[in-house]
């Protein structure tokens, strides 16, 4: 029996339906997603734990960050998620010209994110801020560099998806891979939502 025969219920391109039986991506994907989300949750908790020792120092260091850049980055990732979610829909509808374009739009937003982040790092280094200056910056650089690595991996996945969806997909596992890539990208988005709140907004 091949992989292809173990199709999720409801035909080749199964999306969520009334039955509530569709696992986004495939069950194994959630090992990766919950693994990553729990790992980042531990980092978030460590941040607030260390913040508890020196709230005023953390608040002082936070003032050096540009909230506008953080806000722009949040909006970029939210928008890319919208494109990618629509891209998955287009793939299900076998719209082979629309789907890759939507993924490319997602990539454009991702590149915008990477550019803004690089600009932000450049500005901070220009102000002579180093990682060792304060625990806040340790967390700022640690969290954002890790997240940026995820953005880069997600961008590579989006490129693969854009190239693979130029032709109609043939196997249920191919649809599962596209959904998995999209879910990874949404996870990158949701992690940033929490990072933005913790680093830029918490008082």
């Amino acid at each position, binding site marked *: 029996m091949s992989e292809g025969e173990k199709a999720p219920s409801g035909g080749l391109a199964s999306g969520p339906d009334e039955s509530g039986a569709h696992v986004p991506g*495939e069950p194994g994907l959630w090992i*990766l997603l919950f693994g990553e989300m729990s790992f980042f949750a531990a980092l978030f908790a*460590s941040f607030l734990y260390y913040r508890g020792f020196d709230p005023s120092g953390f608040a002082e260091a936070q003032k050096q960050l540009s909230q506008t850049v953080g806000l722009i980055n949040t909006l970029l990732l939210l928008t890319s998620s919208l494109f990618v979610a629509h891209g998955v829909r287009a793939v299900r509808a076998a719209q082979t010209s629309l789907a890759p374009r939507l993924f490319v739009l997602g990539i454009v937003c991702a590149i915008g994110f990477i550019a803004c982040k690089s600009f932000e790092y450049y500005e901070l280094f220009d102000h002579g801020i180093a*990682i060792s200056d304060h625990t806040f910056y340790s*967390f700022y650089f640690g969290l954002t560099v*890790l997240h940026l*690595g995820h953005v880069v991996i997600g961008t590579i996945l989006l490129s693969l998806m854009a190239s693979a969806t130029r032709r109609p997909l043939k196997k249920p*596992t191919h649809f599962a891979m596209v959904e998995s890539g999209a879910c990874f990208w949404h996870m990158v988005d949701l992690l940033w939502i929490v990072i933005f709140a913790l680093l830029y907004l918490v008082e």
Partner: protein
Amino acid sequence: MEKGFYASVTSQRVLVWMTIALGVLFAISYMGLMRFFPPPPADLPADEVLAHYSTNNIRFRVGVIFGLISGGFLLPITVVISVQMARLEKGVPVWAIIQALAGAVGTIFIWFPILIWGVAAFTVERAAELTLLMHEFGWLLFIAPLSMFPMQLIGIIFIAFTKEESDAHSAFPRWLGYLTAWQLVQSFGGPIAVLFKTGIFSWNGLLPFWLPFGLFSAWMVAICYTLLRALRHQRASSA
């Protein structure tokens, strides 16, 4: 491939079980004798580092011996993984080759740091700063080059997602592909240890040490399980 092209199932099973020696020797050396578990803080002052090597110096050096022996035991399972990958590849098994090469190079990061700590322990009458230098060299060599590991993992992920074999008795089921992908993403955290001396990003912290250590252990158990399961199936279907 013709029958009998690959190593016998029995040989491969023996090789997989040899991985236990890696775990046991490493635990004896690293935890029991060298007392590097949990890892010493990355900002430990030179005199305290020297004290770690000079008190119970002989015990530490015996630990080095066990550690040096353990390194080679990463190779057997690397070879079995590659043989199982090659079974599923068409033509020249490129993914299996890169996995085996990266695994062979990867053993260096097991035994070489231990040899460096061994040099530090060999002459403890040196200035404390020199011992500190060797100590840090060993630790960063042990933790930071984790990024070598991804080359081993990429092929496993690729095979898990493209194979035409059923998940039920494959050595590389799709869920293992996702577990390996998580491992791949996380292994990039290792090099971050170069930047930090304290906190969760330093070499004794959550990110470069505890998470890769836990994840690697879990991944090893998982792949040993799927390899043995696949080999059992291959023996049954060839009989």
